[in-house]
């Protein structure tokens, strides 16, 4: 690679409506008032940063774009400083447009149905309890570093058939791709190359000794003509499953625990009424949706009456859509028994998250097991909560004190 771009400086934002930047520290720390300001200004706002990028600010504008694959392409799904050439089979199906998208998506769906997830549930409960065993006697814990992080990473490693003990390796690649890679392309390329080499080794091993896991499943998959998938497709989908399955759910579990740590009434209610946990999980997903996606405008059109021009990116903020008060009464409040909740945390339209059933199961199990064993916990006033930057938002440091307050 001769033309890898150098990191770009990002001056602090002073005019959010005309110059927004989702990597600004203010956005990372507390994005909710920023989204309210943008929504009040227009259903679609624009920034010159990132070589030109729109952001739909209402639920309706987000839905319009998510359902319009004619004008909005998924070939680039992260808003970055640069637009490196698009690789074929980057990460199908998330980076695919119709008509290529559907067969690639259908291939991945059967292993992630709710019934398939039920089979994984006992292993998830065991993982949660092993993690809790590791810190429960200490009286305090960084719940992001020692609990929420390892639940999804070990779940997806289990499904892929790669060692759960390689977890820290995966977490580092994801940090390089989703956070550092927004501003430093070399980090992104390095991580992609390392991941591909890692998976190639596992594919080679399975050629002589097939296994009962997702890697063998993809190696044995056939297209409509009965042909095996190209190796680049298999590698792309494996990278996608690893990247998409980890810091997303890490963030969702972490944000949920963060909310419960500072909201004793909700915590006590879920302990008294564990049957409410699935409903609460949906509300926590709405209020603290971790994932912001992107599209590229490929043809001029209008969104909620606003013109959008080809060549710009779109920051497709499902989290901001989920805070739209037109769609959700008391949108800025966590209502853990909210009955009507069409939240878009897993996206809308054909790119609905393939792992949504896995994420929901992990969140329910993670909260159930935690609340059974750690009914009392609170934020440690001596520590600091920190949040990840950019595409996936969640706590990366979550210092808790365990047990009843003295």
């Amino acid at each position, binding site marked *: 690679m001769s033309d890898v771009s150098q990191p770009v400086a990002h001056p602090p934002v002073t005019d959010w409506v005309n110059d927004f930047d989702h990597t600004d520290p203010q956005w990372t720390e507390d994005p909710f008032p920023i989204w309210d300001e943008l929504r009040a200004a227009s259903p679609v706002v624009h920034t010159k940063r990132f070589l030109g990028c729109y952001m739909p600010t209402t639920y309706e504008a987000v839905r319009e774009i998510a359902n319009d694959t004619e004008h909005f392409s998924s070939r680039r799904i992260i808003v970055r400083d640069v637009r490196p050439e698009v690789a074929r089979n980057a990460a199908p199906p998330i980076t695919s447009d119709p008509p290529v998208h559907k067969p690639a998506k*259908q291939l991945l*769906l*059967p292993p*992630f*149905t*709710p*019934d398939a997830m039920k089979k994984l549930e006992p292993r998830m409960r065991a993982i949660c309890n092993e993690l809790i065993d590791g810190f429960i006697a200490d009286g305090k814990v960084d719940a992001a570093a020692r609990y929420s992080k390892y639940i999804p990473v070990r779940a997806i490693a289990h499904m892929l058939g790669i060692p759960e003990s390689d977890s820290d390796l995966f977490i580092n690649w994801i940090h390089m791709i989703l956070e550092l890679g927004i501003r430093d392309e070399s980090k992104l390329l390095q991580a992609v190359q390392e991941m591909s080499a890692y998976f190639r080794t596992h594919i080679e091993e399975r050629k002589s000794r097939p296994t009962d896991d997702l890697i063998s499943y993809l190696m044995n998959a056939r297209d409509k003509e009965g042909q095996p998938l190209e190796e680049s497709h298999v590698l792309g989908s494996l990278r996608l499953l690893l990247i998409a399955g980890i810091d997303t759910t890490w963030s969702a579990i972490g944000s949920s625990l963060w909310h419960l740590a500072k909201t004793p009434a909700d915590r006590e209610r879920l302990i008294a009424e564990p049957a409410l946990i*699935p409903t609460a999980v*949906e509300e926590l997903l709405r209020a603290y949706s971790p994932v912001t996606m992107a599209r590229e405008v490929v043809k001029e059109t209008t969104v909620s009456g606003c013109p959008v021009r080809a060549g710009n990116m779109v920051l497709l903020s499902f989290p901001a859509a989920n805070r739209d008060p037109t769609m959700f009464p008391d949108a800025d409040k966590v209502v853990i028994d909210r*009955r*009507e*909740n*069409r*939240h*878009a945390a*897993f996206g*809308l*339209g*054909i790119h*609905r998250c393939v792992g*949504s*059933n896995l994420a*929901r199961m992990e969140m329910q199990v993670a909260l159930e097991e935690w609340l059974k064993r750690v009914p009392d916990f609170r934020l440690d006033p001596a520590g600091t909560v920190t949040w990840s930057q950019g595409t996936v938002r969640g706590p990366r440091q979550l210092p808790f004190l365990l047990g009843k307050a003295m």
Partner: protein
Amino acid sequence: MTERLRVRVDPDKCQGHARCKALAPELFELDEYGNAHEAGDGIVPPGLEDKAWLAKSNCPEIAIDVIEE
């Protein structure tokens, strides 16, 4: 005469969020890809009306109709 309800999933709109199956398992079924369709003829047995409306109001794709017959 009391009204009877019938649920219907629009297969072109359903994207497999599976919210209906979680909220009203008696009224919906999932195929091998996890996409939903109504169980049987979609007629809502007495006592499950609330679940039918709940499924409709939680479908992110607005793919569920509840028809009053």
